[in-house]
Protein backbone atom coordinates (compact mmCIF):
# COMPACT_ATOMS: atom_id res chain seq x y z
CA UNK A 1 0.00 0.00 0.00
CA UNK A 2 1.25 3.49 -0.85
CA UNK A 3 2.17 5.65 2.19
CA UNK A 4 0.00 8.74 2.85
CA UNK A 5 1.18 11.89 1.03
CA UNK A 6 3.60 14.18 2.85
CA UNK A 7 2.17 17.18 4.71
CA UNK A 8 3.89 19.54 2.28
CA UNK A 9 2.24 18.04 -0.80
CA UNK A 10 -1.08 18.08 1.01
CA UNK A 11 -0.56 21.78 1.76
CA UNK A 12 0.29 22.24 -1.90
CA UNK A 13 -2.95 20.59 -2.95
CA UNK A 14 -4.91 22.90 -0.65
CA UNK A 15 -3.01 25.85 -2.09
CA UNK A 16 -3.95 24.81 -5.63
CA UNK A 17 -7.58 24.46 -4.65
CA UNK A 18 -7.57 27.91 -3.02
CA UNK A 19 -5.97 29.47 -6.11
CA UNK A 20 -8.45 27.81 -8.45
CA UNK A 21 -11.39 28.89 -6.29
CA UNK A 22 -10.11 32.49 -6.15
CA UNK A 23 -9.87 32.66 -9.93
CA UNK A 24 -13.57 32.06 -10.19
CA UNK A 25 -14.68 34.04 -7.12
CA UNK A 26 -12.74 37.27 -7.51
CA UNK A 27 -13.09 39.18 -10.78
CA UNK A 28 -10.92 42.11 -9.61
CA UNK A 29 -8.30 40.68 -7.26
CA UNK A 30 -5.77 42.79 -5.37
CA UNK A 31 -2.56 42.49 -7.39
CA UNK A 32 -0.19 42.92 -4.41
CA UNK A 33 -2.02 40.26 -2.38
CA UNK A 34 -2.05 37.91 -5.35
CA UNK A 35 1.67 38.41 -5.86
CA UNK A 36 2.43 37.65 -2.20
CA UNK A 37 0.23 34.56 -2.34
CA UNK A 38 1.97 33.33 -5.49
CA UNK A 39 5.45 33.90 -4.04
CA UNK A 40 4.40 31.96 -0.94
CA UNK A 41 3.00 29.20 -3.15
CA UNK A 42 6.24 28.85 -5.11
CA UNK A 43 8.19 28.59 -1.84
CA UNK A 44 5.80 25.90 -0.64
CA UNK A 45 6.24 24.06 -3.94
CA UNK A 46 10.04 24.00 -3.76
CA UNK A 47 9.95 22.94 -0.11
CA UNK A 48 7.70 20.02 -1.02
CA UNK A 49 10.00 19.10 -3.92
CA UNK A 50 12.92 18.80 -1.46
CA UNK A 51 11.20 15.83 0.16
CA UNK A 52 12.57 13.28 -2.29
CA UNK A 53 10.94 11.23 -5.05
CA UNK A 54 7.14 11.65 -4.76
CA UNK A 55 4.72 8.74 -4.66
CA UNK A 56 2.11 8.45 -7.42
CA UNK A 57 -0.46 10.25 -5.25
CA UNK A 58 2.05 13.01 -4.47
CA UNK A 59 2.85 13.34 -8.17
CA UNK A 60 -0.80 14.11 -8.82
CA UNK A 61 -0.68 16.80 -6.11
CA UNK A 62 2.58 18.12 -7.55
CA UNK A 63 1.05 18.42 -11.02
CA UNK A 64 -2.06 20.11 -9.64
CA UNK A 65 0.04 22.61 -7.70
CA UNK A 66 2.34 23.31 -10.65
CA UNK A 67 -0.63 23.90 -12.95
CA UNK A 68 -2.20 26.33 -10.45
CA UNK A 69 1.10 28.20 -9.96
CA UNK A 70 1.77 28.44 -13.70
CA UNK A 71 -1.72 29.60 -14.48
CA UNK A 72 -1.61 32.22 -11.71
CA UNK A 73 1.94 33.23 -12.70
CA UNK A 74 0.91 33.78 -16.33
CA UNK A 75 -1.94 35.99 -15.18
CA UNK A 76 0.33 37.91 -12.78
CA UNK A 77 3.00 38.57 -15.42
CA UNK A 78 0.37 39.86 -17.84
CA UNK A 79 -1.06 42.19 -15.16
CA UNK A 80 2.34 43.31 -13.85
CA UNK A 81 3.47 44.28 -17.35
CA UNK A 82 0.63 46.82 -17.29
CA UNK A 83 0.78 47.81 -13.58
CA UNK A 84 4.19 47.03 -12.15
CA UNK A 85 3.71 46.96 -8.37
CA UNK A 86 6.49 44.40 -7.80
CA UNK A 87 8.50 46.83 -5.63
CA UNK A 88 5.81 46.47 -2.96
CA UNK A 89 6.77 42.80 -2.70
CA UNK A 90 10.52 43.61 -2.82
CA UNK A 91 10.99 41.88 -6.19
CA UNK A 92 11.23 42.97 -9.82
CA UNK A 93 9.19 41.95 -12.83
CA UNK A 94 12.28 40.08 -14.05
CA UNK A 95 12.25 38.03 -10.81
CA UNK A 96 8.60 37.15 -11.30
CA UNK A 97 9.24 36.18 -14.94
CA UNK A 98 12.26 34.08 -13.92
CA UNK A 99 10.17 32.31 -11.27
CA UNK A 100 7.44 31.54 -13.78
CA UNK A 101 10.02 30.29 -16.29
CA UNK A 102 11.40 27.98 -13.61
CA UNK A 103 7.97 26.53 -12.89
CA UNK A 104 7.76 25.52 -16.56
CA UNK A 105 11.19 23.92 -16.18
CA UNK A 106 9.90 21.96 -13.16
CA UNK A 107 6.89 20.82 -15.17
CA UNK A 108 9.06 19.56 -18.04
CA UNK A 109 11.63 17.96 -15.75
CA UNK A 110 9.01 16.21 -13.59
CA UNK A 111 6.49 15.27 -16.26
CA UNK A 112 8.32 15.58 -19.59
CA UNK A 113 8.93 11.86 -19.88
CA UNK A 114 12.53 11.85 -21.15
CA UNK A 115 13.72 8.24 -21.08
CA UNK A 116 16.75 7.16 -19.07
CA UNK A 117 18.53 6.25 -22.31
CA UNK A 118 17.87 9.69 -23.80
CA UNK A 119 19.08 11.38 -20.58
CA UNK A 120 22.34 9.44 -20.80
CA UNK A 121 22.66 10.28 -24.51
CA UNK A 122 22.23 14.03 -23.90
CA UNK A 123 24.68 14.02 -20.97
CA UNK A 124 27.25 12.12 -23.03
CA UNK A 125 26.84 14.53 -25.94
CA UNK A 126 27.19 17.62 -23.75
CA UNK A 127 29.80 16.51 -21.21
CA UNK A 128 31.51 13.67 -23.04
CA UNK A 129 31.09 9.95 -22.33
CA UNK A 130 31.50 8.95 -18.69
Amino acid at each position, binding site marked *: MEPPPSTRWQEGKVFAEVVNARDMASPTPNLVEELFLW*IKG*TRLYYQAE*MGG*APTEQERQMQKQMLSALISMGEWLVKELRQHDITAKA*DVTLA*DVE*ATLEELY*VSLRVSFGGMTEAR*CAQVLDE*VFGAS
Partner: protein
Amino acid sequence: MPREERIEAILAAWYELVNCAPSERARCRDQRNALLDQAIAGTRSCRQELLEALGPRFQDFKLARRKEHQAKMARVLRQP
Protein backbone atom coordinates in the same frame (compact mmCIF):
# COMPACT_ATOMS: atom_id res chain seq x y z
CA MET B 1 37.02 21.00 -16.29
CA PRO B 2 36.16 17.29 -15.76
CA ARG B 3 32.64 16.06 -16.58
CA GLU B 4 31.51 15.57 -12.95
CA GLU B 5 32.71 19.02 -11.84
CA ARG B 6 30.86 20.70 -14.70
CA ILE B 7 27.68 18.82 -13.84
CA GLU B 8 28.07 19.64 -10.13
CA ALA B 9 28.51 23.33 -10.91
CA ILE B 10 25.21 23.39 -12.84
CA LEU B 11 23.38 21.44 -10.13
CA ALA B 12 24.69 23.80 -7.43
CA ALA B 13 23.57 26.86 -9.42
CA TRP B 14 20.17 25.24 -10.04
CA TYR B 15 19.83 24.43 -6.35
CA GLU B 16 20.62 28.03 -5.47
CA LEU B 17 17.97 29.20 -7.94
CA VAL B 18 15.15 27.16 -6.39
CA ASN B 19 16.18 28.07 -2.84
CA CYS B 20 17.06 31.74 -3.21
CA ALA B 21 15.01 34.70 -2.01
CA PRO B 22 12.31 35.79 -4.51
CA SER B 23 14.29 38.99 -5.15
CA GLU B 24 17.31 36.93 -6.31
CA ARG B 25 15.48 34.78 -8.86
CA ALA B 26 16.44 36.64 -12.04
CA ARG B 27 20.11 36.86 -11.03
CA CYS B 28 20.27 33.17 -10.05
CA ARG B 29 18.43 32.12 -13.22
CA ASP B 30 20.94 34.04 -15.34
CA GLN B 31 23.87 32.44 -13.51
CA ARG B 32 22.53 28.92 -13.99
CA ASN B 33 21.63 29.58 -17.61
CA ALA B 34 25.14 30.92 -18.30
CA LEU B 35 26.57 27.59 -17.13
CA LEU B 36 24.05 25.71 -19.28
CA ASP B 37 24.97 27.82 -22.31
CA GLN B 38 28.67 27.13 -21.77
CA ALA B 39 27.93 23.41 -21.55
CA ILE B 40 25.77 23.17 -24.68
CA ALA B 41 27.97 25.41 -26.84
CA GLY B 42 28.88 23.46 -29.97
CA THR B 43 26.40 20.64 -29.29
CA ARG B 44 22.91 19.99 -30.69
CA SER B 45 21.29 20.12 -27.25
CA CYS B 46 19.27 23.04 -25.92
CA ARG B 47 18.97 24.31 -22.32
CA GLN B 48 15.62 22.67 -21.70
CA GLU B 49 16.81 19.30 -22.95
CA LEU B 50 19.91 19.45 -20.75
CA LEU B 51 17.82 20.38 -17.70
CA GLU B 52 15.51 17.45 -18.36
CA ALA B 53 18.48 15.11 -18.73
CA LEU B 54 19.94 16.41 -15.47
CA GLY B 55 16.58 16.13 -13.67
CA PRO B 56 17.18 12.76 -11.95
CA ARG B 57 20.67 13.90 -10.86
CA PHE B 58 19.16 17.11 -9.51
CA GLN B 59 16.67 15.16 -7.42
CA ASP B 60 19.57 13.22 -5.80
CA PHE B 61 21.54 16.45 -5.37
CA LYS B 62 18.65 18.11 -3.51
CA LEU B 63 18.24 15.11 -1.20
CA ALA B 64 21.97 15.06 -0.42
CA ARG B 65 21.94 18.79 0.36
CA ARG B 66 18.90 18.33 2.58
CA LYS B 67 20.60 15.54 4.52
CA GLU B 68 23.74 17.66 4.92
CA HIS B 69 21.62 20.50 6.26
CA GLN B 70 19.77 18.23 8.69
CA ALA B 71 23.07 16.76 9.97
CA LYS B 72 24.44 20.26 10.44
CA MET B 73 21.34 21.32 12.36
CA ALA B 74 21.54 18.22 14.57
CA ARG B 75 25.19 19.04 15.41
CA VAL B 76 24.24 22.62 16.31
CA LEU B 77 21.38 21.42 18.53
CA ARG B 78 23.66 18.92 20.31
CA GLN B 79 26.17 21.65 21.23
CA PRO B 80 25.94 22.66 24.91
